Structures are given as structure tokens and as C-alpha cells.
């Protein structure tokens, strides 16, 4: 079985990391460009191939209608949920789809898990190139405040990408793992994680026991639609209006110009973390140049409401953990947006202590995922994560109210049993509606699933069916039902309210393989065969020449044997075997290669391979 990697599937950037078996330290793996950050952007090339990462990000400017960013915002959501999002993001959605979101790239449609799968597959390729080996299992991080549907969608994305997601780990928890390993911290830790599109706050207790360290999450809170994107959108509206006012020109109908303005603003935003002043420029089609100067004070005035919004979940999380700000021993900042000086100052003031920023806020979540991957892979136990479910699980009761069966911040796995019976004679089904959220009415909570329990006909009140709701270690719901009169297990088909079915996932998996580059091992086999063709041809040529007469009988026999062995291995699909046979033939032909080079330059060529001479 291949290695297990840790993946941070972010709104803005995604990363893949592993734990170095020698040093035990987690490390992010670079892609072809050398950077460890893979922009979470996907673009459909006119030739039908899929482009992911930095090259796709560049296409946002030139081919914005074929490219998509921040798709994480759409994971696990229905068409009705995202109407407000559509006003701000240039997502092009299939308007005929009632429930499942389908995003249009060029003339093709993709669901959010499919888009995320392209990103996961790209990271899988990075890792496979790095290891020179297949990678088929991963630990993937999700915002702690993700609900069941969003988690399920992330797991589906893994499946579509050909990765078995062994565990979904909450992002702030992963960050705490990385920091814990780095600093050997103890006590109560608050992790403030503001990324591109999501905000999480988690309060953890780090406990050392005789057997190892336990990371116990006490509470978590957040907002899955609050992040650096919101800062960008706020300013984009302002800048676009300024262009209209100053130049009587609306760039809204020119997606490329909008992307260019966004890029310019993001640059200015980053500069304002270091400097007091930055500017945004945009050349309009008329040749006129729009220019806007930004001071840090202005910028902070604008974003203060967003920063204040993050402090509400912070207070709720502390209240649920029954802790005062002063009782927190360490504060950790995670996510690129926490580079903003105003955020650092606000967090520091609230907790009365300087937050930790030693680890790269872009990488720390992926590093933590790699730590968890290592725990799962090696089974060598010196650490345990105890995480919680962020939202209460409830069942709709009479009158549209919600009865909570598993409260928020329960350690997972967590379960609850409910007893059901019938209300009328010979009733054959009981409808059950499962919800997630803190509100009292079903209509205000997130609908997770509806299903009907099948009941054998009987007088009213006689059937006794026990339904067990279980939230697993990934924060995903499982339901099982048992007829208490005969002990029979009922199978419960839980169709997530906004999810995609297993058959759809199968189809997407097949399609994604068509889009994806060839499988890693397939690619390796092709490369190895090409190489063996070259060396076999060179060997045949050299053996046919007169120089080969100088070979000893033994040498000649070894070469013939190696040629036969390599030829045989090429017929198979084992690239490792082909490589081994290539090496053997290279060894056997070292003397022959020297002879071919005719003595004069042979000293300079010692150790060269026949195919290179």
C-alpha cells in the first residue's frame, strides 16, 4: 500500500505534506514550480484538458469563463444556499439544476466535489513525483465548523480523485498538532484560523499522559463563509464603483478586467501588512489609467467590521469551554489572512498575550495533517486527537421544532439512541428528518437527511424501533435502526439533502480519469519502456560493430543475458523491474561502452552508460 499524505484543501491555496520517517518532522512537498502552494484554481483548456494551480490562476486573467477559484465556498451546499454568494463571485452556475450545484467551465459542467477532486489529483501527482511511488490514501483537513454535508462533499472529492480519505481533520486541530510537535506546548491553547474563505476558532487542552500526548478539543466555533475573500470583495465593490464614478466605465462586464483589478488589490493588501501605503492601478480599454491609493489606516477602518465578526465565535467558543480569555495559556494564529497587523493586534489584545506565528501560517495546517497521517500510517502511538462535532445534531419533532440528540462540542465519535413507534394502526413508515444547527426550529437548521423507517403493519404504538445516530471520527453522520421486537437491523438509506449519490460519484470518478493525466505508475512504465528501447538499440548497434570482438566470452554472455532479461521485463507493467533490468544492462555494458569510445577519450568516459555514448 502506498504512503499516506496530509492535504490542506484550502479556499485559496492547497498543500500536500508528509512526515519524514528519519526525522519525524512534517514537511510540505513542492510542485513542479518549486513552490509548496498550489493555488486552488481549476481551468478547462479549450483542448479539453484540465489545468490546476498556478497556470490555472494565470488563466483567471485571460480565460476567466473557463476558470474557477474559491470553489470550497460551494462544497456541500445547494443551489438555494448560494444565491448571495453568486452576487459577489463570478461563479457561472447551471440555472436549470434545482439542487446540486453545477459550475460551468467553458461549455462543460462540474460539481464542486469534481472541481476539488482536480485539485486533490494535482497534489497527489506532486506527492507521487516527490516519492517516486504511488499515493492512494490521505488525511484531508476541513474547517472545524464544516457541517455534515460539507464534510461528505470533501470525502467525495477524495474518492473522485482516487484517494481514500482515511480521516478528515479539523484545520485548527491540525495546526495545534503541528505547533504541539514544534514547541512541545502544554495547557490550554486557542487556535484562531482565518483563511481565504473560512474562519475557525478552536480551544484545546494539551495533556501529557504516561503513554503520550492527548490533544483534546474542548470547543470549536466559526463561520464557514468569512475570510480573506470577504475583505477582497468589500474592496472590489468599492474600487469598481470608483472606476464608474471617475471614468464612467463599468468593468463588471469584463471578467478579465475584474480579475486584474482583484489581483492588483490583493497585491496592495499584502503590501499593507508591511508598509503604511500601497496603490492599485488598472489600465482601461480606453487607455485611461485608474489609480487608487490606500493607507493602512484606511484599510484597517474598512476591514474592522470583518475582524469584529470573527470575535463573536471566539467568545462563544470560550464560553462553551467554560474559560475566560486570561485562562488560555497559548494562542496560535493560522491562515494567510492572519498576517494582517490589525488581526494580530486584535487577538493579542483580547487574550492579553502575544500569539504564536512561528510556523508559516500557509503551511501549518498541511503540516498538522501530515502528523496525523503519520499516526495513522505507522500505528506507532504517542499522540491522540480527540475532536468534537461543531454543531448540534437534532431531529424534527411535532410542530417543526428540533429535539437535540447530540449537543455541539461533543467529543466524536458520539452517538444517541431514539425510540420510535407508530401513531396509527398498520402504519408502514415513520418519517425522520435529521438536522444540524443550534436554532430551535427545523426551518432554521441545516437539513442533513430525510428518510422513512419501514415498519411491519401492527396496531398503533406496538412497534418499537430504536434509531441510532452516530457521528464518526470524521464528523460524518451514520444512521442505523433496530426493531426491538425481533432484534432485526433495518438498513437506513440516508440520502444527504444536498449531496451526490454513490452512483454519481462512480461516474465522476471514471470521467475524472479521462481528464487527469495518466496514472502515476502508467506514466512510469511508459518512461521506463522508452528508456529501455534506447539502451537496447545502442547495445545492438555496439554488438554489431567490430569493437565487440574485444569482449571476453563471459562479458558477451552477461550482456546477452541482460538483454534478454530486459526485453522480457518490458513486456510486463512493472516499472520498478524494468528499471532494475536497465541498471543491470548498463552495468554489463560498461566495458563495451568504453571500447566503443575507441580508447582515446575512454578515461573521460569511465562510468558512462552505453546509451549516452
Amino acid at each position, binding site marked *: 500500500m502506498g504512503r499516506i499524505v496530509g492535504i490542506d484543501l484550502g479556499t485559496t491555496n492547497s498543500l500536500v505534506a508528509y512526515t519524514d520517517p528519519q526525522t519525524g518532522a512534517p514537511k510540505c512537498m513542492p510542485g513542479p514550480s518549486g513552490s509548496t502552494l498550489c493555488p486552488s484554481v481549476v481551468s478547462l483548456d479549450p483542448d479539453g484538458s484540465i489545468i490546476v494551480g498556478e497556470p490555472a490562476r494565470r488563466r483567471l486573467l485571460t480565460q476567466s469563463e473557463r476558470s474557477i477559484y474559491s470553489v470550497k465556498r460551494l462544497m456541500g451546499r445547494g443551489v438555494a444556499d448560494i444565491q448571495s454568494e453568486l452576487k459577489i463571485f463570478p461563479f457561472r452556475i447551471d440555472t436549470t439544476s434545482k439542487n446540486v450545484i453545477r459550475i460551468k467551465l467553458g461549455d462543460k459542467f462540474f460539481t464542486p466535489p469534481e472541481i476539488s477532486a482536480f485539485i486533490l489529483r494535482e497534489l497527489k501527482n506532486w506527492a507521487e513525483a516527490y516519492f517516486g511511488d504511488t499515493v492512494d490514501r490521505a488525511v484531508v483537513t476541513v474547517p472545524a465548523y464544516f457541517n455534515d454535508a460539507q464534510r461528505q462533499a470533501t470525502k467525495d472529492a477524495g474518492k473522485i480523485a482516487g484517494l481514500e480519505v482515511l480521516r478528515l481533520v479539523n484545520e485548527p486541530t491540525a495546526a495545534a498538532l503541528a505547533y504541539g510537535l514544534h514547541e512541545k506546548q502544554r495547557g490550554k491553547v486557542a487556535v484562531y484560523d482565518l483563511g481565504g474563505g473560512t474562519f475557525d476558532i478552536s480551544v484545546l487542552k494539551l495533556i501529557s499522559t504516561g503513554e503520550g500526548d492527548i490533544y483534546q478539543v474542548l470547543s470549536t466555533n466559526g463561520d464557514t463563509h468569512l475570510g480573506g475573500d470577504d475583505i477582497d470583495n468589500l474592496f472590489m465593490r468599492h474600487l469598481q464603483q470608483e472606476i464608474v464614478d471617475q471614468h464612467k466605465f463599468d468593468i463588471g462586464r469584463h471578467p478579465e478586467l475584474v480579475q486584474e483589478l482583484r489581483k492588483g488589490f490583493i497585491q496592495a493588501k499584502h503590501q499593507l501588512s508591511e508598509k503604511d501605503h500601497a496603490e492599485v492601478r488598472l489600465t482601461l480599454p480606453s487607455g485611461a489609467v485608474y489609480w487608487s491609493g490606500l493607507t493602512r489606516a484606511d484599510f484597517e477602518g474598512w476591514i474592522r467590521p470583518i475582524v469584529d465578526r470573527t470575535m463573536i465565535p471566539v467568545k462563544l467558543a470560550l464560553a462553551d469551554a467554560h474559560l475566560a480569555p486570561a485562562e488560555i495559556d497559548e494562542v496560535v494564529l493560522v491562515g494567510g489572512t492572519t498576517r494582517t497587523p490589525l488581526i494580530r493586534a486584535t487577538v493579542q489584545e483580547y487574550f492579553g498575550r502575544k500569539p504564536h506565528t512561528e510556523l508559516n501560517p500557509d503551511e501549518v495546517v498541511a503540516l498538522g495533517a501530515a502528523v496525523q497521517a503519520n499516526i495513522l500510517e505507522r*500505528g506507532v*502511538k504517542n499522540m*491522540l486527537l*480527540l475532536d468534537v462535532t461543531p454543531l448540534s445534531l437534532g431531529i424534527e419533532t411535532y410542530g417543526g421544532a428540533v429535539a437535540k440528540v447530540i449537543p455541539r462540542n461533543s467529543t466524536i*465519535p*458520539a452517538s444517541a439512541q431514539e425510540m420510535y413507534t407508530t401513531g396509527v394502526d398498520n402504519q408502514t413508515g415513520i418519517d425522520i428528518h435529521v438536522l444540524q444547527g443550534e436554532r430551535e426550529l427545523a426551518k432554521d437548521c441545516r437539513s442533513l437527511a430525510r428518510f422513512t423507517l419501514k415498519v411491519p403493519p401492527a396496531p398503533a404504538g406496538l412497534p418499537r424501533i430504536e434509531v441510532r445516530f*452516530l457521528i464518526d*471520527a470524521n464528523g460524518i453522520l451514520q444512521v442505523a435502526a433496530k426493531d426491538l421486537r425481533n432484534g432485526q437491523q433495518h438498513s437506513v438509506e440516508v440520502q444527504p439533502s444536498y449531496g451526490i449519490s454513490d452512483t454519481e460519484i462512480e461516474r465522476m470518478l471514471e470521467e475524472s480519469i479521462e481528464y487527469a493525466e495518466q496514472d502515476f505508475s502508467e506514466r512510469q512504465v511508459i518512461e521506463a519502456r522508452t528508456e529501455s528501447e534506447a539502451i537496447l538499440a545502442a547495445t545492438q548497434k555496439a554488438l554489431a560493430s567490430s569493437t565487440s570482438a574485444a569482449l571476453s566470452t563471459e562479458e558477451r554472455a552477461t550482456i546477452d543475458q541482460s538483454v534478454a532479461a530486459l526485453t522480457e521485463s518490458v513486456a510486463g507493467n512493472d516499472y520498478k523491474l524494468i528499471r532494475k533490468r536497465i541498471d543491470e544492462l548498463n552495468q554489463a555494458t560498461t566495458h563495451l561502452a568504453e571500447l566503443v569510445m575507441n580508447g582515446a577519450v575512454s578515461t573521460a568516459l569511465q562510468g558512462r552508460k552505453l546509451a549516452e555514448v
Partner: protein
Amino acid sequence: MTDPPLVCWSCHERTLGTHFCSSCGKLQKGRHGTDYYALFGMPRKLSIDLGSLEREFLQLSWKLHPDNFVNATEQERELSLQRSSEVNDAYRVLRDPVARVEYLLELEGARKEGEHKQQAPPELLEEVFELNESLDELREAKEAGGDLSTLKARLESAQKNFQQKLGEVDQQLQVAAQQWDAAIEANAGDSDRAAIKVRLNELLNRRSYIRNLVNNVAKELTES
């Protein structure tokens, strides 16, 4: 109380281990009918040392958590999910003093929520009536857009009054809990125990009624 000898589901040998088979080392099913107290090896008392409860919880979690079984067989993975969720459920209930009383009464078959859950306890009738009147007035004034400050002040003082009552119930609950523990220690007779259980049940119902009231008023006040 003696348990029947246990046989491992996997190797079919007799096992002496509580969680893992003493022969083959596979994770075992939980003992049938194990309640939350028995799971943590504690007597059915209402005062619990939270420190040792936490230690037990962490130790069990360390052994049973699904992370330990990622590479194990399907059955073991499923068992670990069942057993670790049970440990978490048990810890969640036992560490909360009110949930603990509720659980104990259910275990003893003595939990009765009362036929009229929404009915006010008789001695509170008058005050509840006044409170509801004030709430109605506040809602009307809100709709009419009138001055809310006097009404809000009246509600806030009523709120304080009920919060105080909530505190009183909690104290009474504590006293009754101590009586229960004393009865257990003294190995008291069934009728003595039954009386304490009835008292605990009454107090729980009273508590939940007052708490709902306080929550409703708080909601109404923050929304105006």
C-alpha cells in the same frame, strides 16, 4: 454479581481482558448492559470526582479510539467506533451534574417527565402568570413601536427573580444528591431510595421548567 465467562468473537477462546482478547489481542465487544457508571468502574453515586473521571476517560479513549484501528479488520474498526462513541457519550453525561441525575434516574427507572411538562409548579403559578403578562405587553409594545424601557425593566427584575429560583433548585438538587449518596453508602432500603428518587425527579422537572422560562425571557429581551 458474577458475569458469565466471555468468549472472543474472533478466536473463540475464553478471554479475561476487559477491552482486548487475552488470547488474540483483538478488540472486544462491550459487555451487554454495561451502563455508563460501570464503564468507568464507578458506583452509582451522584457526586463524582471529576479528576478521576477525566483520567479514566482519557485512558479508555487512548485504547479504543478509531485512530488505533485504521489498519485493522472491518469488524474491529466497527467495534472501535461503537465502543469509543459509548465512552464519549458516557463522559459527556457523567461530567455534567444535571445530566448525571437524569441518567441515574433513567437507569433506576425513576425518571418521569410529568404529564404536563409545560404546566407551572403550583407555588410559582402567580409569578409565572405575571411574567407572561409582562411578556405579552412587551410583544404588543414592540409591534406598536411604543416605549419599551419600563416594560423591559420589569421583565429584567422578574428575570433576576427566576434566576435566583434556579439557583435555589440547584442547591436543593445538590442536597437531594447527597442524600442519595448517603443512602447508597448506608445500604439503605428500597423505600428510602425510592423516596429520594421521587424527590430528585420532581426537582429535575422544576428545574427544567424554570430554565425554559429564564431562556424565553432572555430571548425576548435580547430581541427587543
